[in-house]
């Protein structure tokens, strides 16, 4: 027996009985505290994982999940946090990621860490190369990679380059890479956030399969359905504290309970109520809108007929890669330089934008799906990000930025959107995902658009922040703004839209009023 059995568990919910003697803990994190200047990210967190279980870690954005995992993996080295980590019964003092990998812990982040220009087998054994003398033994490498690919049930040629694989397959390669290290504890940070339903299913099945092979798994996720489907245990964090650990096999886990613990209150409605209202006239319309890729010549959009009325929320449903984002970007100044044909009619007039600059001037805004990659300037502060798309509104003569007015504007949006930050001079990189998304929204609201395109508005955002974003959308629509919402989450599309278009392979394959739409109908059209 390892000494870790003597640990008294945090037991806020009273859900667990102390039956520690019956199980063996692979991981014990005790009284972990971690502070950033001005913020206590973790305070006395206790977290324990039993050998061979799937343990989900849930909580709102900023609750401390990622921070806790960074403490565990050595991203924040020993000495930068308080508390104790026991892994396999012995105390660990990881100084770097390398140390935790050595011990058998592997983390797979949301942002994948693969080298796109290298092949699958090169990536799998990167940093763990099989050698023959001083050279790499490529035959053995390929053989080993093939074995690992079978383990993760991925059927691809190991010589394929990573950049030629979809996100779902890349995720599996990443897991295969982790397995090559002889991993004992696998940590997945929102593994399904960027996956479509099919890939999600595959991945979840795989995780269950790995469990049967003896791999213990910690999964951070916002998708409660997944938690219910695969978790043996669930630990809820809130505001940097352990709220409770629930045992699925005792029937303690269901969606309402989880949400209650996560937000600290019961959320009755996930979507704010819709008031019946009169919609205005058509504000934006496309006719036979067709786009070709500038390099490959592939038809990206095929005769799209689309319209949106003033004050309407239109949902764009469809699978990832179906052409929804491409459609949005083709409207928004066409930054990808597609060859376009067909008509774009804005406020009754034909329009053509060859740069986002023009689209913004004409009253369009685009909250991108990848807020870190192309939405925000992470190294700049909140206020600079909010005003970036509309500096002319805070300009004095000589194109001089009125910095005082800028702070005032940013403070207004901070209050309005409830962005949690000590001040608007904070760098965006230090904010949690939900707050970053709010900065992104604030930026585009300040550009005062007529048509706002929301690309995956709630990706990677917790339940509480989601609700706030939904309320903002409702308010804006009630004030007469037209909102195009691209979303891969069907309940969200159904809950928020007045009308829904379904997109598949660059074509509109269906149009439904919200009242008639169901998940089944949409999926049918989307896979058509």
């Amino acid at each position, binding site marked *: 027996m390892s000494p870790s059995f003597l640990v008294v568990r945090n037991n806020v919910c009273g859900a667990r009985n102390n039956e520690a003697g019956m199980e063996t803990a692979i991981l014990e994190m005790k009284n972990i505290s971690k502070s950033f200047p001005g913020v206590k990210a973790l305070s006395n967190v206790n977290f324990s994982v039993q050998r061979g279980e799937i343990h989900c870690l849930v909580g709102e954005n900023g609750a401390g999940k990622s921070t806790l995992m960074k403490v565990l993996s050595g991203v924040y080295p020993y000495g930068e946090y308080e508390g104790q980590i026991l892994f396999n019964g012995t105390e660990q003092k990881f100084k770097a990621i390398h140390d935790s990998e050595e011990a058998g812990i592997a983390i797979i982040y949301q942002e994948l860490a693969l080298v796109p220009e290298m092949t699958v087998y090169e990536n799998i054994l990167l940093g763990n190369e099989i050698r023959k003398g001083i050279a790499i033994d490529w035959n053995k490498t390929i053989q080993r990679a093939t074995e690992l690919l079978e383990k993760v049930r991925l059927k691809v040629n190991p010589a394929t380059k990573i950049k030629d694989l979809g996100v779902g397959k890349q995720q599996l390669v990443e897991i295969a890479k982790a397995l090559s290290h002889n991993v004992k504890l696998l940590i997945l940070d929102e593994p399904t956030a960027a996956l479509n339903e099919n890939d999600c299913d595959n991945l979840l099945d795989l995780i269950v399969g790995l469990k049967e092979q003896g791999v213990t798994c910690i999964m951070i996720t916002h998708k409660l359905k997944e938690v219910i489907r695969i978790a043996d245990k669930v630990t809820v964090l809130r505001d940097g504290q352990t709220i409770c650990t629930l045992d699925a096999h005792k029937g303690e886990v269901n969606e309402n309970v989880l949400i209650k613990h996560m937000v600290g209150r019961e959320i009755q409605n996930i979507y704010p109520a819709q008031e019946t209202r009169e919609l205005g006239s058509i504000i934006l319309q496309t006719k036979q809108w067709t786009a070709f890729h500038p390099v490959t010549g592939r038809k990206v959009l095929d005769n799209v007929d689309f319209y949106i009325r003033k004050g309407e929320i239109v949902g764009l449903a469809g699978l990832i890669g179906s052409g929804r984002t491409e459609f949005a970007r083709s409207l928004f100044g066409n930054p990808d330089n597609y060859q376009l044909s067909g008509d774009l009619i804005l406020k009754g007039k034909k329009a053509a934008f060859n740069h986002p600059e023009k689209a913004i001037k004409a009253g369009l805004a685009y909250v991108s799906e990848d807020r870190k990659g*192309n939405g925000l*300037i992470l190294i700049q502060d909140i206020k*600079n990000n909010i005003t970036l*798309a509309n*500096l002319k509104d805070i300009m004095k003569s000589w194109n001089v930025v009125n910095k*005082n007015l800028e702070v005032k504007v940013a403070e207004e949006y901070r209050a309005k959107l409830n962005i949690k930050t000590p001040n608007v001079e904070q760098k965006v990189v230090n904010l949690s995902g939900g707050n970053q998304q709010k900065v992104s929204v604030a930026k585009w609201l300040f550009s005062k658009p007529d048509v706002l395109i929301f690309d995956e508005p709630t990706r990677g955002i917790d339940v509480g922040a989601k609700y706030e974003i939904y309320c903002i959308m409702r308010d804006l629509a009630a004030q007469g703004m037209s909102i195009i919402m691209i979303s891969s989450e069907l309940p969200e599309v159904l809950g928020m839209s007045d009308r829904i278009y379904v997109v598949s392979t660059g074509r509109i394959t269906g149009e439904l009023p919200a009242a008639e739409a169901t998940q089944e109908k949409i999926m049918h059209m989307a896979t058509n």
Partner: protein
Amino acid sequence: MTTNDIKKMVRSNLRDYGMYIALALIMIIFTVLTKGLFISSRNIANLLNQSGYIVVLAVGMTLVIVIRHIDLSVGFLAGFIGAVTAIALVSWKLPLILVLPGVLILGVLAGLLTAYPVAKLGIPSFVTSLAGWLIYRGALLLVTGQTGTIIIDNPTFNALGNGYIPDIIKSETFLPGVHKLTLILGALAIVWFIAGQIRNRKSKMEYGFDVLPTDMFVMKLIFMAAILGFITWILAGYNGMSWTVVIMLIVVFAYDFITQQTVLGRHIYAVGGNPEAASLSGINVQKITMMVFGSMGFLTALSGILFTSRLQSATPQAGTLFELDAIAAAYIGGVSAAGGVGKVTGSLIGALVYMSLMNGMNLLGTDISLQYIIRGIVLVTAVVFDVSTRKTKV
């Protein structure tokens, strides 16, 4: 104030003013080692005149690095433009009033030429500017090939690099040997600075923002005024302000204003911080790239003019390695290679640190081999310091 607060304040100020402190330290050390010779009015005037061409280049390079590019062509372009200036003045006997704007425009065009493949086709600026480095080196040899060094006899032109602003009051009784116009300009600068600070503070108070408490604000003003006054006094002690210093100050002020206060400046830092996000925010990245390289070309021409004027001649070797001096100055001044971070004023200080080292070691008679080694150590120390202080979050 607890000791913790003080520690925090010191740390955050160290980061913001680290380079100023480093410059002051270097100056004090050389002053001690040279028994006061370094800080003499004559030497400081000389140091500033030597620094002119590198400050001007470093200012331009700052923006280029901020938008994640590099321009290796500036050294030989400066040399080439200097040679063209010399030929236009000496061989073609064109009036200075035409030659100066002409070569400045030539510089802008050269900058745009370097930028065009970068902005439109996405060719790495390292490659296009390396091509420029080769081409302008060849061009410089070509135009100076027959004559070798070209001596310039135009006194107005030569004054740009060697002359001083005239004094308005010539008095032998009141403060003899002190340049009065420089004193007056320094006094005006202090008044202007204080007025600006007060206006700024008022405006902040109107918005209801926090401002420094009055006593600390006054102390800050006195401190800054004292520093400005000291610099003025030193400059006035020799021949007063040189034309090079005037040009340098105008360039730094103009660029600092543009980058820190205007929409264009915001756009430049946005492009450096995240070009894709900048583009989706309605910023024309290609246009910004062209403008930044155009400005680099303009400043390169100005640098060439200053250097040629200082030597009073154009030589086939002019401009050799200027580009690396400018890049080093910008890095010492806190510009980040990852883009999006770096100030023009920082690069001014960086260039002064770099040139002070050179000047001080020359005064001490340090061997040139050792000088290079020490400059290398200072460069890497400065960047290590900058990066590590940036990491500690405030």
